[in-house]
């Protein structure tokens, strides 16, 4: 089971994501964005950072990197893709998950611990999260204010596309519609969230709740890989 972590110019959480994937029991390696293939990765992570300096709009220029064609094909085959923070912005710009990430309502770069309600445990990204367990994860972003027009938000909710919501007592840190912190595509194999699970993958870092998401991914992907191997 191999996790590939895409490295764009300006990514800065790629090593943390690789480390977290290894803690969760996977092989993990960086994927330079100019390579047009995924090097056999079973799972792809788009990490946090500031790809292309966030110029124009966060995530938009990275969307056109050569690796994104391979990533789109991977997602089209049902392959798992997780976008974290800037990676979520890239997925949204690429249209692989719904919505857009606007400037934080506070106009400030927000970096602090938040609490997440896990709305779904029946996804490959959350299967290892115990029932009723909230996650304590850090955020660090200037553009995390989740936006979709109201009718589309209703449709997103109706198909259970919201996976993570900011929860009290810290609450919504950026003005996101309906406290949305993370969403999943309609097929259920591409997920994006603003908080950083890879920065909370060891108790030493203040929380190891993030490891639950990496474990979910690795265990889900291993099941798929095993099933494919047996077929």
């Amino acid at each position: 089971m191999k996790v590939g972590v895409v490295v764009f110019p300006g990514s800065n959480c790629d090593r943390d994501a690789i480390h977290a994937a290894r803690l969760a029991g996977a092989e993990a390696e960086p994927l330079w964005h100019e390579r047009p293939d995924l090097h056999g990765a079973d799972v792809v992570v788009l990490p946090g950072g500031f790809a292309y300096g966030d110029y124009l709009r966060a995530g938009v220029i990275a969307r056109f990197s050569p690796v994104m064609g391979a990533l789109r094909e991977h997602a089209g085959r049902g392959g798992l893709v997780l976008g974290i923070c800037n990676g979520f912005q890239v997925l949204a710009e690429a249209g692989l998950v719904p919505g857009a990430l606007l400037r934080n309502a506070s106009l400030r770069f927000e970096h602090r611990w938040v609490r997440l309600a896990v709305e779904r445990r029946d996804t490959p990204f959350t299967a290892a999260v115990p029932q009723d367990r909230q996650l304590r994860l850090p955020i660090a972003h200037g553009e995390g204010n989740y936006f979709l027009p109201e009718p589309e938000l209703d449709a997103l909710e109706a198909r259970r596309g919201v996976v993570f919501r900011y929860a009290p007592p810290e609450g919504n840190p950026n003005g996101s519609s309906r406290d949305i912190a993370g969403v999943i595509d309609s097929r259920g194999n591409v997920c994006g969230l603003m908080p950083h699970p890879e920065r909370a993958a060891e108790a030493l870092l203040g929380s190891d709740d993030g490891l639950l998401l990496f474990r979910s991914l690795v265990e889900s992907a291993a099941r798929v890989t095993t099933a494919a191997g047996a077929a």
Partner: protein
Amino acid sequence: MSVHRYVVSVMPREGILDPQGRAVESALPHLDVRGVRDVRVGRRVELSVEAASEGEATALVERLAGELFANPLIEAWRVERLEEALR
């Protein structure tokens, strides 16, 4: 082939939170300015396009505007020839 010069104006759509516009507005009292409102902040992109015809060049700029310069979900845009825009 001829070269055509364009300006693309990108603005947050109506109803979309425009925190930059709001921030600018909140500075106005410090300048002793009254009676200014509805400040909205967008982006301006200028570019030159070499193409066989003006129609071809304009079509390319329209495509770039919708795919790259603006996010249609949250932003609206307008493409103009730069000479016209400066007039």
